[in-house]
Structures are given as C-alpha cells and as structure tokens.
C-alpha cells in the first residue's frame, strides 16, 4: 500500500466518529498499542523535548525501507505517533522525505501538529523526514 492509500485508509477509519470523545478514545487505544521504542534507544540524542510532552524517536533504514519506532510520555501524543508511523513505515526514504501528512488535518487533529502546541510532534515529523533524507541513496 502506498503512503497515499494508507492515509486514505485512516481517513475512512476516522469518518465513523462523530463525537470528539469517541475519536480520542480511538487515538488513545492506538497509543496504548504503539510498539515501543527499545529502552536502549531512549537516549538523550533521540529525545525531542516539548513544553507539554516529550517524544523519543529512533529511525533505521533497512533494504531501502524506513523503519521508525517512538514513544512519548503522553498517551494522545503516542496515538498520533502511531498514525504517523503506520503511514511511513516500510516506505522508501524518498517517499517519506516527500510526505506531508495531510491526513492529520483531514481527521481533525491538526492542532496537535501546530508549532505552538509544543508537544514534540512537530519536531518529530521534521526528524522523521531528516532521517529519511539522510537515507536517500
């Protein structure tokens, strides 16, 4: 599945939620299921400090496919990370570097990716793309 197809799949999934709380309950479930970054990778250089929440991100490129693992101290932040990672994992570094994550806006979660929110997510997206750029052959 391409990045675009995966994004559309998420948009369709979210279309059934009319109530904000239902939507957030789903995000929180995703956050709880997020495969965690391995403890050894939870180092200072992988830590993205936000005012509100913190994010750890580890990036690898194996056989020209990006693989991200991440964690956050806040569960809603984790849920959104789960969505972002689902879209870009197993994709080529070129595609990841180009992705704009527009689906986040479509599903009404744009506020979490606002630079003023300071939850670490904006920097995490930037770091994901930077890591992908570094991996481009």
């Amino acid at each position, binding site marked *: 599945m391409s990045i675009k197809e995966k994004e559309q799949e998420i948009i369709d999934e979210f279309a059934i939620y009319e109530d*904000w*709380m239902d939507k*957030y*309950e789903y995000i*929180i479930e995703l956050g*709880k299921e997020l495969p965690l970054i391995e403890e050894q990778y939870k180092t200072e250089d992988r830590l993205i400090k936000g*005012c*509100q*929440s*913190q994010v750890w991100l580890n990036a690898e490129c194996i056989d020209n496919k990006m693989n991200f693992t991440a964690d956050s*101290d*806040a*569960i*809603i*932040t984790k849920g959104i990370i789960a969505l972002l990672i689902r879209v870009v994992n197993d994709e080529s570094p070129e595609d990841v570097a180009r992705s704009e994550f527009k689906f986040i806006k479509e599903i009404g979660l744009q506020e979490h990716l606002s630079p003023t929110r300071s*939850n670490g997510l904006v920097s995490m997206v930037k770091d994901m793309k930077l890591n992908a750029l570094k991996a481009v052959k």
Partner: protein
Amino acid sequence: MNIKAIRSQFPILEEKIHGKPLVYFDNGATTQKPLSVIQRVNDYYSKENANIHRGVHTLSQEATTAYENARNTIQEYLGAKQSHEILFTKGTTDSINLVAFSFGELLNADDEVIISAMEHHSNIVPWQMLCERKGCKLRVIPMNEKGELELDVYDTLLSEKTKLVAVTHISNALGTVNNVEHIIEKAHAVGAKVLIDGAQSIQHIKVNVQDLGCDFYAFSGHKLFGPTGIGVLYGKEEILNQMPPYQGGGDMIKEVTLEKTTYNELPHKFEAGTPNIAGGIGLGTAFEFLNSLNMEDVLKHEQELLNYATEELSKIEGIQFYGEAEEKTSVISFLIDGLHPYDVGTLLDKMGIAVRTGHHCTQPIMDQFGIPGTIRASFALYNTKEEIDLFIAALNRIIPILQD
C-alpha cells in the same frame, strides 16, 4: 455578591467550545474582559484615536486626557503618592526588565539580589541577566514542600550586600500568598529595595502600595480584566529619579542635540515611543470595574470555590495536590496517578473546559517537586460551583479512558 450579574458583564462566558458551554478555569494565564473594557477600547479607536502628549489638535488632547486619567485612576486604586509613580509598560515582564536594567545600572560587582524558589521565569531570568552583566550574586529563598517560602532562611540571606529583593506576591503555579510585609520590612532594615511581582494579586486582593511599603510593584493589565500588551510598574519617585532611562526614543527626552540629550521627567523618562494608548485607557476602565466590586466579597467567593473544588477533587483516587500553603488564592495545581497533564488538558478542552497544563513558566518549582508539570485550574470572580461540578464530572469521565 451577585455572580449572575457579574457573569452577564463578560460576553465570552456565553461562548460554546466544541459545542459545550465554556468553562474557563485558566484565569491565572489571563482573565476575560468585561463589556465596559471592550467598549472603552472600541470607543477609543472609533471616536478618539490620535497620538498623545504633543498634539495641539482636539483629538490628540482628548486622547492625552483619557490616557492620563487612566494613570490617575490606577494611582488612586493602588494608593500611590504620585501619578508619575505609575509607569505604563507592556506588562509584568516588561516592568521587571525595566527595573533589572535601570536599577541594575546602579549596582556593582559585589552586590547581591535575592529572589525566591517559587518565581515565574520572568522574575528569574532578568536577574540572572543582570548578574551576568554586572557580576552581582543571585541568592534564592528556599520553599518548603507545602509551597511556602522559608522566611527564617531569608532572614539569614540578607546583609548589607543585598541591594534588591524581588519576590512574587502570589505564586502563579501554587497560589501561595507570600508574607511580603515581612519580606519588605526585613529588606529595608538592611537598606535593600524590594520589587513585588504582583501579576497574580490585584485580581484577587486589594493592594495598596504605600501600606505595603514596597519600592516597586509590577503587574499586567490582562490578568485583571484589562487589555493585553499593557501593564504597570509602580516605583517610588525618589528611586525612579535616581535610575537611568531604560529605552531611548521619543517622549522620554527634554532636549536632543546630536551631541547630547537631556531626559524628560517622570513618568515620561521611562516611556519611550508611542505607548499602547488604547491599552492604557482600557486598563483604566478595568480598574473602574475593580472599583465597582467589593474585593472582600470577591476573595470570599473565590475562597469558597477553592475549598469546594479542593474537597471534590480530593475524592478522586490517586490525586496529588501541589501547593498546600496556609494562605493561598484560588489556584489548584494537581496530578492524577498515571495520567499525563497534556492528555487531561486535551480531553477537558473537548468538553469545553479550559485549564492550563505544563510547567507554568516555573520550572524550578516543578524540579523541586520532581515532576514535569501539573494540571492547573485557576478561578476568577465569575466562576461558579456549577462549573466546578462540570469539571469534576468531566474528569471522572476521562480518567477511565486514559488509565490502562
């Protein structure tokens, strides 16, 4: 106090957030504005807008009168001796920076400045910058686990080297009301001056600067029902006259030649450039609003809210309060076991409830408690017990969602 009548003066309280009635518990960050203030700012721009102080035309004179009348209203409310002891600034931060620079120019390398462990960053960083610039030493009054200053330690920090003590009247993160009378008296005994950060005070308690005896009192307009971008530094005339200007520009000069400039008198010496005229006039109206209230009734109502909310929150399993001083205003900082403040704040918002989460610009306090931040509910005179009930119900709904 008729809360319904007070609420009707604040149009924003009728707003809905995500389809839910707004419950505004972020008053420590900024208060809402009464219609009188909104209309006054609107009227200024609609009917009186002109630059002040040097115009010969009618509008300029009217705007000048309105601006200076606002200064007089504030002087009277605060009990300052002279109206020129009321300097208009951008807000508390600007007021403190003014003192840190201009009063700071009078300090030498061996001098000491005392702050406390519960200061907002804006009453820490300007002093650190001063100490770096002048080589002075910064000393800190410690805080106990209830969130109260250890004044017996303060007494031992004071010496003839102490030139300034800068402490907050009321803690923004914990609500603690400090014994500033004691702090001022002891500082004056060693010849030190005192700046009180009053950002969290005037909206809750009646402040009289001469009764307090402080040398400087700094606050923001937007936290006491006034516009943003305007604040006040009260300073004693004698000290302000000794201090060099903060910023250079128009309005603050007596005479300028290309070789040398002489400075204007107070308050203009510290008010370079075209000021926030609409803000100043609106702030005057905010003080008229305060004048229309009985502040003892306001405090009583807010204490009832504080006690009720504390009681109701205590029933939540795993709740931990931060800031349990004997004397505190209507601020409640807390955490719930296993729940991150960001998650709680996000979900409360979806239910129409506005609280603040994070470190509240007081990282040293959070470090002392060993936490990254708290959830803070801060009440104002227009809040009600019914709103607290909505808040508790919302918390009880989101806790099981967030807990594993």
